[in-house]
């Protein structure tokens, strides 16, 4: 019964996170859903998974979301399609039916685990899954580099504009320049990344 209540809470707050239009409330709903999931993990003796879920997903990621939302100015004139409000319940119902009809039958057919790869958490992480750690380093590093690359200052802003060199622009064409090559409006800069309307380059 406790598991069922936790699962219902998890699903309910996940749906709220999708449907609520206020980003802040949506992020908080996601954090609450994550707390429900963490309690489920604890209940099912997956203690480390529970700790990570609470600290990283419910904690750290929510802080990041809220910080990002705080840095973003609201845009009242953005018109969003509301079609998903009609489509989402249909998809949800269809998946719920599939879940009830198929997954229970499916999971019932899974036999008891034979010789599972087991050990202490540290043993599994450091000794058994060493290659995964290499991949995780790569994934984290890719994330860091992505932030560095996407939030970089433009070459012009840094005061070292690249020479045009041999990038001829045809007569009569608008000056392609860096902006045209990159398919963006001049001075969009970081504003576009932060979901703001471009306000010129002053923020850079």
């Amino acid at each position, binding site marked *: 019964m406790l598991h069922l209540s936790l699962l219902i809470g998890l699903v309910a707050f996940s749906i709220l996170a999708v449907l609520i239009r206020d980003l802040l409330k949506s992020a908080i709903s996601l954090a609450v859903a994550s707390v429900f999931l963490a309690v489920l993990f604890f209940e099912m003796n997956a203690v480390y998974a529970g700790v990570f879920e609470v600290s990283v997903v419910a904690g750290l990621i929510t802080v990041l979301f809220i910080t990002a939302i705080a840095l973003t100015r609201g845009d009242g004139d953005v018109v969003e399609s509301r079609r998903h409000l009609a489509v989402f319940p249909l998809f949800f119902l269809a998946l719920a039916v599939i879940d009830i009809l198929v997954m229970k039958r*499916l999971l019932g057919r899974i036999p008891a685990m034979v010789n*599972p790869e087991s050990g202490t958490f540290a043993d599994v992480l450091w000794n058994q899954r060493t290659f995964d750690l290499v991949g995780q380093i*790569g994934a984290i590093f890719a994330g860091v580099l*992505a932030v560095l690359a996407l939030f970089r200052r433009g070459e012009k802003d840094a005061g*070292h504009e690249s020479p045009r060199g041999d990038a001829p622009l045809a007569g009569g064409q608008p000056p392609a320049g860096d902006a045209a090559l990159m*398919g963006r409006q001049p001075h969009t800069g970081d504003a576009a990344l932060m979901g703001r309307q471009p306000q010129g380059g002053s923020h850079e």
Partner: protein
Amino acid sequence: MIFLFIIVPLVMASLLPLVGKISKRFLPDLLANATMLFLLVYAVVSARPLVAGGGVVQQAFWFGAPLNIRLLLDGFSLFMLFTISLVSFTVTLYSIDYMEHYGAKADYYALLLLMIAGMNGLVLASDLFNIYIFLEVAAIASYALVAFGRGHDELEASFKYLMLSAVASAFILLSIAIIFALTGGVSFGTVAHGLETLNVRFVVGFCSALFLMGFGLKAALVPFHSWLPDAHPSAPAPISAMLSGVLIKVSGVYAMMRVFLNVFGLTPALTTILSILGIASIFVGALAALGQNDIKRMLAYSSISQIGYVVLGFAIGTPLGILGGLFHLFNHALFKSLLFLNAGAIERSTGTRSLDKMGGLAKVMPVTAGTSAVGSLSIAGVPPLNGFWSKLLIIIALVQAKMVALAVLAVLGSVVTLWYYLVLQHQAFFGKLNESWKAVKEAPFWMSASTILLALLCIAVGLAFPVVIHSWLQPAADILGKGVGVAMSFIGF
């Protein structure tokens, strides 16, 4: 040591942002190209002898101490490593000139190297969860690279790609979790052995469906293709070449075929589903490409179509079909990279991707026009270029497997391909030169060198295809042809 394929690009990726503080262009260009050249030479010289006996599982060492990292190198993974290294090398050569105007070249190369480390890790992985982890490494780097220009279109395309890719990852992860619950392990050997001893066809079918959706999304197979026509054209041209040339093949086709052929075993149901998806991809991609005016978008739809041929070849399951699929995978890596790089050269020189606005560019960009003609004729399957032989092998394999209707459809798809590539050539390069383009100049040296190299490879592979088949493709086809026996032979390593 096979581990170098992963650790060298990873270490170089960590050094490049620091190097970028000292030298903005020269050192990043030099180091990135040197790394790619090293990986290419290493694949040819050092790794190839290791697969002579069928394949090895090699343990990695760190300063003499053994690590619990076991990498699987066989004909199939070596073939993929070679393809990745070859395309990556031409792309970094091209980037020397092309990426000048984007800025942050060191960060760009670092992300590119991380994507390559992710792909190399994926093809050397010997268990399902390793595949998932390295798939994510390559994917995260590719999201950033698609958005590297930071324009509205790039960011939107990258976000769409990220969202759909996350759905794909969720399917793959769920399937791996169920497989782990079933067999108690995730290594290829344990899973293959476990599934053989358990009578769980229904569950395996469900997991296959999840993998099909997950890897199908990564490979942009119809009907999971909607992200590709946005993501690939929006990226800088060398990244479009990498994504269409190798990433969709490694994270989609390689992973799918490794799991289906060597771990689960190809079933008649899978053959049917993959054949249908392959044919659907060929036609949906080709017909959509026909109606495009944006040159890079046309090439992106063409990638969906050509991936259909590759999957169709594998789906037949016969030795010749697998060989044809592998050969077309390699050829597509060459000519699609070439065509995307040419599209980048045109965009850089004229500032447009719209075919309507082009015309007569052959007069001012003869190298780009010439290499583009080679790429277009190759992909359309015109003899004696490389694309002809791979399509021929797939069609013969279909006829041999008594799938004559599919063979006819594959030929028709090739005709449509020829049609839209002739349209592309005609609109971009032939006819009267538009007044606006009189001042346009040919692409700079490194960009031209890269496209000439790829065009020469298309011609050389077409003329010397028996050598390529014997030296690179047959060992890979043999591994796939052995089915689950390959995974079984690695139990206990």
